[in-house]
């Protein structure tokens, strides 16, 4: 794998941060949010800031922009120097002058970062109106030019479109155009691609690199995706709990991480090499899905609308103890399949047989007794537990529904807590008193409490940090081993799929385009779409966990393991 790792020590220093302390406004005694941050970025350099969620990456970038929310966070001490200008001491008006001209920023969520009620063209042009004396016509011409530079198609139309009329990638291009139109010296990008699917992410990363090349901009790139880091960084800083624990050129960091935390972080990054496939079970399949169709909407009072064909003719089976992964870009119909199987929605056609019962056509009431055979774990650990219920109550809900006496259910709940590696006393606490990873483990425990034959996990680890993600994946693996459940694992992350699945099913626009053993699909994709998906995965040639390159194509590894 090739790294950038260019040397910029000769270039002009754009941003210098020294001993920066940020704390909660009006509470100087509270634990600092940023604790003595030092950072340097030089012209043309791409500096990546990595670290787990909540480590202070965003706060650092906002501090540099002078955009800390004044009633929540404040700079307590330290220096932020932008080409000789001290940002910590700047007046609001001065700060406004600097922004967009000298320092610009792109945010993670392209939908929410653009004003939904203003045309995107206007939003770009506004920067010119604020900071230059260009005439209206010139400003527009300049805007159009910039939009072309970020490779937006059909620029005239998009100029007068509203954000919601654009795709995520297009929106992010608008953000970039907006940030770069005045040719700033420093571009801060806070997780600019996290919300995008891999193929779009790749395009955006390329675009940023291209623009940087063209304008010689310094880039501070924030991400938690080590793959992306490997792809784009010159230098990297690793953050943990408000401190920078390690800072090094990319190659050094990936090959010879010094700090334990860095090592831990890198070890948690799953490989794109598929796991060794488990033996095919002799027992009969837990679930059989045949010809599943799901069309949303349709009908309507005035217009007969077509409806969204979210899943078309989906077929698969899963045997006990085995895991089927469904991968595909956003909107391809993954969740739809999961929800149909769980009968949270009613499929338009097809058969779903779980533990010997055909459930696709059962009424709610008829279905109820069969529910214990299949359980689901959702993506969002915050919302999938009732915030008003204690953990114990949540864990007991299912068993009690199926006739387990309360006491027995409680005892079982305590055992489950051990299983998912949480203290027993956690039973009396409420969900908000846990971290995201802990919550997800509780959700898994709740599903397992039903002793299901099939466990559906819909993006069950996507909201979690890599390190936490690794723990949860381990837990799922354990459970599968112990109870021999069949698992349907839905993810958009190929690394995760490679890590956990025996079989993979690739979906695109509701259709299954490829289906086979994980090793086969991920190493020798036959379908164009699957190939693109794999190509686009950043850092796919690096074996992070072992601090070395994957010297050959991942497929071979999988095959030989």
């Amino acid at each position, binding site marked *: 794998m090739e790294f950038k790792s260019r040397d910029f020590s000769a270039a002009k220093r754009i941003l210098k941060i020294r001993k920066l302390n940020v704390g909660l406004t009006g509470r100087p005694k509270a634990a600092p949010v940023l604790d003595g941050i030092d950072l340097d970025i030089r012209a043309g350099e791409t500096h990546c800031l990595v670290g787990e969620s909540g480590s202070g990456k965003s706060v650092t970038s906002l501090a540099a922009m002078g955009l800390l929310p004044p*009633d*929540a966070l404040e700079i307590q001490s330290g220096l932020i120097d932008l080409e000789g200008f001290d940002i910590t001491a700047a007046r609001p008006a001065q700060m406004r002058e600097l922004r967009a001209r000298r320092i610009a920023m792109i945010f993670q969520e392209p*939908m929410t970062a653009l004003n939904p009620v203003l045309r995107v063209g206007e939003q770009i042009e506004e920067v010119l109106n604020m900071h230059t004396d260009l005439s209206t016509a010139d400003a527009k011409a300049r805007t159009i030019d910039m939009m072309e530079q970020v490779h937006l198609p059909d620029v005239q139309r998009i100029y007068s479109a509203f954000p*919601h009329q654009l795709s995520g990638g297009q929106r992010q291009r608008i953000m970039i155009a907006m940030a770069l139109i005045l040719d700033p010296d420093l571009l801060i990008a806070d997780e600019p691609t996290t919300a995008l699917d891999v193929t779009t992410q790749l395009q955006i990363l390329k675009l940023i690199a291209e623009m940087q090349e063209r304008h010689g901009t310094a880039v501070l790139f924030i991400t938690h995706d080590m793959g992306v880091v490997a792809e784009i960084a010159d230098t990297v800083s690793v953050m943990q709990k408000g401190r920078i624990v390690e800072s090094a050129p990319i190659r050094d960091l990936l090959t010879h991480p010094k700090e334990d935390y860095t090592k831990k972080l890198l070890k948690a990054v799953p490989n794109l090499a598929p796991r060794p496939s488990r033996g095919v079970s002799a027992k009969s399949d837990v679930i059989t899905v045949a010809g599943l169709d799901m069309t949303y909407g349709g009908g309507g009072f005035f217009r007969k609308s077509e409806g969204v064909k979210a899943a078309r003719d989906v077929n698969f089976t899963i045997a006990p103890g085995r895991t089927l992964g469904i991968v595909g870009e956003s909107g391809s119909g993954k969740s739809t399949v999961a929800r149909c199987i*769980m009968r*949270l929605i009613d499929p338009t056609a097809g058969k779903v047989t779980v533990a010997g019962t055909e459930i696709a056509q059962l009424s*709610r009431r008829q279905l*109820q*007794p069969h*529910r*214990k055979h*299949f*359980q*689901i774990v*959702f*993506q*969002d650990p*915050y*919302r*999938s*537990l*009732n*915030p*008003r219920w204690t953990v114990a109550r949540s864990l007991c*809900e*299912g068993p009690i*529904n*199926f006739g387990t006496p309360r006491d027995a259910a409680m005892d079982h709940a305590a055992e489950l807590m051990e299983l998912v590696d949480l203290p027993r006393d956690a039973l009396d606490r409420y969900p*908000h*008193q846990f971290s995201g990873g802990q919550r997800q483990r509780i*959700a898994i425990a*709740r599903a397992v409490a*039903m002793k299901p034959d099939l466990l559906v996990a819909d993006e069950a680890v996507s909201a979690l940090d890599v390190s936490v993600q690794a723990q949860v994946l381990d837990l799922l693996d354990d459970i599968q081993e112990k109870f021999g459940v069949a698992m349907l694992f839905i993810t958009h992350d190929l690394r995760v799929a490679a890590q956990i699945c025996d079989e993979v099913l690739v979906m695109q626009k509701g259709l299954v385009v490829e289906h086979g053993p994980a090793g086969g699909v991920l190493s020798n994709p036959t379908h164009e779409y699957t190939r693109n998906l794999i190509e686009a995965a950043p850092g796919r040639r690096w074996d992070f966990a072992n601090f070395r390159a994957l010297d050959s194509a991942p497929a071979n590894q999988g095959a030989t393991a």
Partner: protein
Amino acid sequence: MTEIPTSRHSAFQVLTGLFSLPAGARIGIGPMIAAVILVVIVLAAVLAPLYVPYDPLSMDAMARLKPPSEAHLLGTDPYGRDTFSRVMTGGRVSLLIGIGAAVVSVAVGLMIGLVAGFFRVADGVIMRIMDSLMAIPAILLAIALVALNEPSLSSVIIAITVPEVPRVVRLVRSVVLSAREEPYVEAAIALGSSMPKILIQHLMPNTFAPLIVQGTYICASAILIEAILSFLGAGVSTEIPTWGNIMAEGRVYFQIKPGLIFWPGLLLSLCILSINLLGDTARDLLDPRMKKREG
């Protein structure tokens, strides 16, 4: 995927958003004062019979419209009744009307709203009826209900309640509709919980916080509406002193005896002010989102 403010969505915001305080607000000095004021007023009203110097109904034609004096702390009204005794006693009924209206409309609205929010079939019909009730101006409905029956305490409470119910129903329904999309509700379905159980155990508690806020709002506005009904001659009989009818009776004396309006008005405003403020605070304390932010 996109956040589209549909009208249902915004109706919910309207109802709850009215009382929003900044995120992370802790109970400040304001709500403390409000609570103290409210407790004092409520106690003063409830205990009024124990300490007021005169029977609030006893008249003395020879001592009409007297200015404040030792004998009559706040003077007397056009019947020669003691204003102080009346105002303090009047609080009892006003508060009763406020609390009564709030409790009844919240209870009735909660039931209808849960049904509407959960049973698709009933929803259409119920909501059309609620829309219609909302479209009739509350005050006209109240006057009609009171005038056409008779202005007893209970008919005033009912008259105030009827127009409030649809608002509560909408609120409850919107909470139920948005809560039933929550993954934890789907999880409960997956865990095999029955619909009534989900409705009562998972969904209903979500409505409590907004309902408490709405309840305080109804309580405050009921006290005000009672005053307006009295003003229009459709209120509770003057035999039952309320802040509303004391003010309504005193309104023509506004220029010569402002005390007749001022004192009940002051207590009423303080009371409503406190109730509203406490409603705001309750909202913040009960909002699970707040807990999440703190947690």
